[in-house]
């Protein structure tokens, strides 16, 4: 048995904020090329684009879009929080700010979801 298996101190608010920031960045990096591929259909394959847009009317896809909106906002706000930490004088209450960022992102994603349904 190696000692590393027994380290379990992670999981605090700010550690989770860093994890969400990293994973949301990864998810957006995967999403963006696919997004541009779909947009490119508009140039030469309009029929395929229309078919794809009809496919996106499915509830499950709309849910996925809402998740994407959440990831985009949470990554944006999380990135701004880190930039403020690193470029301006220190401000206490980082846990509150990280929680606020996640809450605002969830609210925006929920509003998006309500609007698309």
């Amino acid at each position: 048995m190696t000692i590393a298996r027994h380290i379990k101190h992670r999981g605090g608010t700010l550690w989770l904020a860093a994890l969400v920031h990293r994973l949301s960045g990864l998810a957006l990096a995967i999403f963006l090329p696919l997004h541009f591929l779909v947009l490119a259909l508009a140039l030469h394959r309009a029929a395929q684009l229309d078919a794809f847009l009809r496919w996106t009317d499915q509830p499950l896809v709309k849910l996925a879009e809402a998740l994407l909106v959440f990831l985009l906002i949470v990554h944006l706000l999380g990135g701004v929080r880190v930039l403020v930490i690193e470029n301006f004088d220190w401000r206490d209450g980082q846990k509150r700010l990280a929680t606020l960022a996640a809450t605002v992102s969830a609210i925006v994603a929920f509003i998006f979801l309500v609007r698309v349904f």
Partner: protein
Amino acid sequence: MLLWRIRTLNWNACLWQLSMDARVKPAHDEWNSAWARVDCAQIAASKPLTENRMPEAPTELSVSLWRGGVEGRYETYRVPRRDSQTVLDVVTYVQRHIDPTLSYRFACRVGMCGSCAMTVNGRPRWTCRTHVAKVAGSGRLEIGPLANLPVIKDLATDMAPFFEKWREAKGAFAPSRTRADAIPRIRPDSPARLAADAAVECINCGVCYAACDTVRWNAAYLGPAALNRAWTLINDERDAGNVARLQAVAATGGCHACHSHQSCQEHCPLSLNPTASIAGLKRRTALAYLKGELKP
């Protein structure tokens, strides 16, 4: 509950009585001492005190200690539970009464030397100031060596890489004057002094180093403690080594490798904020680069 409170109060009075018997009691306390004597007798004639207390904590702890080097295993010991017992007390009990071959490190036992840090129930902590009541409500403790450092044996880690990185971060004071010169006056409320004050109480326990994921991922990363130390010296108006220091902390593995996870701040037993110090270094090095004082 009221009865329990009264009995507790009376028990305290008994203790006070015992302690005061050996001294000259002040006159105004005579009523109190008489009351305490009567009540001591009442307590002696009543039920045992323990029956009226709050639910008892476990009388024994189940303590798993890491035994071996990097490869090893947790071995479990039974240790008597005591009032105001610290995690270091528990480890010391095992070493003194159960297995004298157990290796661990401590010195001052009062949170000053920074030598007794270990991983306690998965979190890096200073063991001499960590009460068992705080971390082992269930009566179970798992204690291992600090993470991110080589294990020498059992609970003792090799701190050499940790202090080597202090050296790499130019963590030693570089005097700008000789002892023949007058002592410089530093205003206590100057911004630099306030910044240094906020970070200077580090005891080098290595808790932040063990808690840092960037240290885990990046072997070259200097770590929160070394960078925090560099920040205090950069704000020390008497120091003359800042050009080399800024160069050192801006290099690969320096302050810019920090991801601002703030685990160092979260776990620091002295509630210092190395993330803030590292952020200060990031700003200072960026400014120095823009001014042409740092080579890319």
